């Protein structure tokens, strides 16, 4: 099986600093790590490889400092990590990002399955998986909570549609965007902690860096980066200022205050 994993290096959302005035993110304030949902994609990739053999290639589009995250991916069991990094990729929205990732997959050649996370903690769109699938003209399922069958040419997954969960059969090659909690053939999938030996090996491993020129044969360079992005942020601001001034109460007094409030709010 040729397994592709899409890994987005993202800032640690609990540590990243926001410029509250400007509503922007200080990207230098924390390291880039693997998007938490993508850890599940790596884990599933390893299980597929165990069953069928093959190779796991990860693709990431990110600035050069994302290398640390890619070494982490290698330590976790990815065989080959490719970093798409070039000024010309900068400013990409989800459409341009997906186009770039899909082009890189084309350049790799054939694939059986592409695994990615349900969404990223920074972009938070859940677009990239379905868009990559569309650009490569393969079926996909998003918000996948279970992989219940895996054959050489088809798989069965459970996908959250919103109102209920549905069972879907996809013909391979296909793309699957993984949610959590997640099951794979009846077993719960949790990201595992890499072994020290693997971490050391990954530290010396090679990260392939591809530039826009490397995609020349498979991509229209005008569709990359900001050039290829139809959406523009015109304004942003910090959202977590709540403006609420809590009335602080203690112990038993709390119960009567809450009781009173619930009456006023019409709950009681």
């Amino acid at each position, binding site marked *: 099986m040729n397994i592709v994993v899409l890994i987005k290096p993202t800032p640690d959302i609990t540590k990243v600093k926001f410029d509250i005035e400007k509503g922007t993110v200080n990207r230098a304030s924390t390291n880039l790590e693997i998007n938490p949902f993508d850890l599940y994609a790596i884990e599933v990739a390893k299980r597929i490889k165990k069953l069928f053999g093959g190779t796991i290639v990860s693709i990431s589009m990110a600035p050069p400092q994302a290398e640390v995250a890619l070494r982490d991916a290698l330590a976790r069991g990815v065989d080959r990590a490719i970093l798409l990094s070039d000024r010309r990729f900068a400013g990409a929205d989800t459409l341009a990002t997906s186009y770039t990732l899909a082009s890189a997959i084309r350049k790799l050649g054939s694939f059986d399955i592409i695994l990615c996370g349900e969404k990223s903690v920074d972009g938070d769109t859940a677009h990239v998986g379905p868009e990559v699938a569309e650009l490569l003209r393969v079926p996909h399922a998003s918000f996948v909570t279970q992989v219940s069958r895996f054959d050489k040419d088809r798989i069965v997954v459970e996908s959250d549609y919103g109102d209920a969960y549905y*069972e879907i059969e996809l013909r391979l090659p296909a793309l699957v965007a993984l949610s959590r909690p997640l099951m794979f053939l009846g077993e719960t999938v949790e990201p595992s902690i890499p072994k020290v030996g693997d971490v050391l090996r990954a530290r010396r491993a090679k990260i392939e860096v591809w530039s826009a020129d490397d995609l020349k044969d498979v991509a229209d360079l005008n569709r990359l980066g900001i050039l290829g992005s139809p959406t523009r942020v015109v304004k942003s601001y910090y959202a977590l200022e709540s403006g609420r001034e809590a009335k602080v109460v203690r112990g038993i007094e709390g119960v009567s205050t809450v009781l009173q409030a619930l009456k006023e709010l019409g709950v009681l």
Partner: protein
Amino acid sequence: MSWSGVAVYVENYGRGPSKASFELLGKAREIAAKIGGFVHAIVLLDKEVEKCADVLVAYGADEVIVYRVEDRELPNLLIHKCSLVDAIKQLMPKLVLFPATPWGRSLAPRVAASIGAGLTADCLDVYVDDSGDIVQVRPAFTGNIIAHIKTITHPVMTTVRPGVFPVPKPDFSRKGRVIEKVLNSNMCPSAKEGYRVLGLSREKKVRIQEARVIVSIGRGVKSREDIKLFEELAKELGAQLACSKPLVDAGWMEKDFQVGFSGNIVKPKVYIALGISGAPQHIAGMKDSDFVISVNTDPSAPIARYSNIFVVGDMYEFAKKLLDAVRTLKGVGN
């Protein structure tokens, strides 16, 4: 022909057109009044076309575009995509709205990629600015940042978070037009072999997004058995029980009960957070609640900043005393 009007994708699997779709029709009317053009509702249907179309017109559609399918209840994502691509090419709407349900968020990006359009995810608002441009408002960075986004190509495509716009009042005297379409198989080759819905796998046990009052419990809960106490409190308050992520991770609660970035976004009248610290991923799911009450032993817990009433104290003691008080109150009322 030039780009004009607003198209709404009507999500219509399972039980029928979703509430979120009606919310979008209301918003579409408001936007069409500013940018001109029709409100088109695009829907995939198996039967009772007229009945459904009448309802969509009553809620705000001028034109209902119906694609006939056999599998309304078990929808094929690829066929929905092909239908939408076809509809958008013919209608040329300036704006296309999808509900930001998991299904909508799975479908819209495929449509966008197919036609090379920009797409903005999970918006909290869409408005027309002074220069007549459509602006989309969305949270990013796990809800930490709100961004206003313009799309510089046509059409503008947006998924909108369910529940942010009201369902409009239907007007059954409104008149509209129905256009029936058939997708011929060469427009959507290999859709059926590529993607097959085998059936409903699991129903959702709860829909906490719709609850008016929520009692939400976090890692302050010490054991699985203890959940009963809070369940009782929720019941007594006529509230829905919910939780933070660690309780789902521990296997004590199901994911459908989880509030937050990777769970459900809720907006109840009253949100009661017991033993929840207020991590940004949790706040992202509940900060728009009308009134927040939280109970925490730690006076410095971040949830305090998002609360209207912050009780410093033990959640167990609080729950027991409140339960007693509520029962006494109800007893007196009888």
